[in-house]
């Protein structure tokens, strides 16, 4: 009906406008809102909407807890991401050739990636329980005596706990993507190189890596951004504790907004995060030619 009233010229705008409207609502509105409110002094108790200048942004630089949470986020990212990538790549090589029941095994490996991160966190909380969890039990077998490690409480063990869970859930994601990418590499180019180690590395470096690089970089980008906003796993495992030791940037923003009710200050943090990511992401997307 609309096509009769509006000729072809407007058709493309009719198609895209509902999507654009919704994206503006959740994409642009929070950005503008955060910018405006961050120049005020609003908390849940006080609604002072007069212009307050840059106090909130100055506060950002003085806020040690904010920069610590950023450091925690980066720490998890720089440890987990390379492990996920290398382990995923090694696993992709392992499953590249035919073997009995390959399809079923690959499907089973997919399971961790499709469950909710909050369930992944909950599952690891049960696994890592100091007394009734199986992990301490298994470690105890190797150690020869019971090991009552408090994984989610002990400051030296919380990061390993979080990173184990993270790696368990997302290595299969890397694995699946890299397996698909490796399957597309022409085998005749690499077969001769599989006989000995030295030739294997050379063919990997000069034939395989360039071929899978575009796909690999998309996977790294997706996982990197997911790790930057990591929230669910932390929430289920430690809720940022002990103290604020495992507070990531997402957890800290949540606490400021919904526990401390610092409306204006949270808006300033949100704006900082959105602005920072928009610049990085837009650059990466253009650089990688993803829009095409």
């Amino acid at each position, binding site marked *: 009906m609309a096509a009769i009233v509006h000729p072809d010229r407007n058709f493309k705008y009719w198609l895209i406008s509902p999507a654009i409207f919704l994206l503006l609502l959740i994409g642009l509105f929070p950005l503008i809102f955060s910018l405006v409110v961050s120049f005020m002094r609003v908390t849940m108790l006080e609604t002072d909407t007069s212009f307050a200048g840059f106090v909130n942004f100055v506060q950002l630089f003085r806020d040690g807890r904010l920069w610590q949470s950023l450091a925690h986020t980066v720490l998890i990212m720089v440890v987990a991401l390379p492990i996920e990538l290398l382990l995923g790549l090694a696993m992709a090589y392992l499953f590249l050739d*035919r073997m009995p029941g390959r399809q079923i095994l690959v499907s089973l490996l997919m399971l961790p990636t499709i469950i909710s991160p909050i369930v992944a966190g909950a599952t690891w909380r049960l696994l890592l329980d100091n007394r009734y969890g199986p992990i301490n039990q298994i470690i105890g077998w190797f150690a020869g005596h019971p090991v009552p490690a408090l994984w989610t409480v002990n400051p030296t063990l919380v990061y390993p706990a979080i990173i184990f869970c993270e790696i368990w859930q997302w290595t299969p994601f890397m694995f699946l993507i890299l397996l*698909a990418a490796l399957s597309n590499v022409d085998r005749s180019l690499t077969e001769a190189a599989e006989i000995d180690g030295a030739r294997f590395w050379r063919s990997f470096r000069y034939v395989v890596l360039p071929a899978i690089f575009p796909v690999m970089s998309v996977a790294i980008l997706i996982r990197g951004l997911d790790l930057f906003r990591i*929230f669910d796993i932390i929430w289920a495992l430690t809720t940022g504790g002990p103290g604020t030791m495992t507070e990531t940037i997402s957890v800290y923003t949540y606490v400021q907004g919904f526990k401390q009710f610092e409306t204006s200050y949270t808006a300033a943090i949100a704006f900082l995060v959105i602005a920072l990511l928009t610049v990085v992401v837009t650059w990466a997307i253009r650089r990688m030619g993803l829009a095409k």
Partner: protein
Amino acid sequence: MGYQAHGAGKMTGVPFHRRAETKLALRYLTALLLVVIFVFPIYWLFAISFKTPGEIFAFPPVWYPKSIQFNNYAVLFKDGDAKTVGNSLVLASVSTFFAMIFGTAAAYSLARFKTGGENLAVWIISQRMMPPVAIAFPIFLLYVWLGWVDTYIGLIILYTAFGLPYVIWMMRGYIEDIPLELEESALIDGCSRWEVLWKVVFPMARSGLFATAVFTFVFSWNDFLFALVLTRTEVITYTVQVTHYFGGQSNFWSKIAAMSVLGTIPVFITVATLQRYLVRGISMGAVKG
């Protein structure tokens, strides 16, 4: 066997052939070990959900329930907690439906008319990368003002919008794969633009629509943060419900496990039935599979 030897083995005869078999056996054992390691946590979750309290809190841990009993699930249904899975189902299905309609339409516009050029495409994709927590706070205040907190409509609109960039990105790729000639001949035959969309594009992109819908559904289904912020009592999703069982000292283990399994089974079933589309979907179209 079905294994393709690496050329060398065939030429030099038995010893190398045997080496290839040993290699396969080693590879196979490693593969099995990895699968066991990665599947064990999920097994443990399912096992706990069937255990009796005595088995859950046994030391040393009991590795499998002596008998399958459904009491842990029955409790969830009796207390009404299981309805949170229903909430997740409504929110994820309805938002997936709208995201697919609006997203596919937008993708068609981008793919065939280059609406807005590359800048618009980049902006849409970059929306996918936004950290939810930065958006959650302003949206929460907006929803308080609109009276949308703890309502279906509030979360459905949010999930629809959050699914859109993914749908647009994926569907644009699938639509570009459809030969343009088909659409042109339909136009010459007197079809309107809308009819072309309905009668040519949708049927041709059917498998793509399916795969994209599955992932959009899973993203909404798995969401925790928005549900945590924007629900109170009425439309709590199962992910939020799971965290309600965490306590300072005593966790309700049986409830955590049973609720997690209830919320995981629908996703496993959906994904199992649509397995062959998965790789392209999971990598956001990076690998054309």
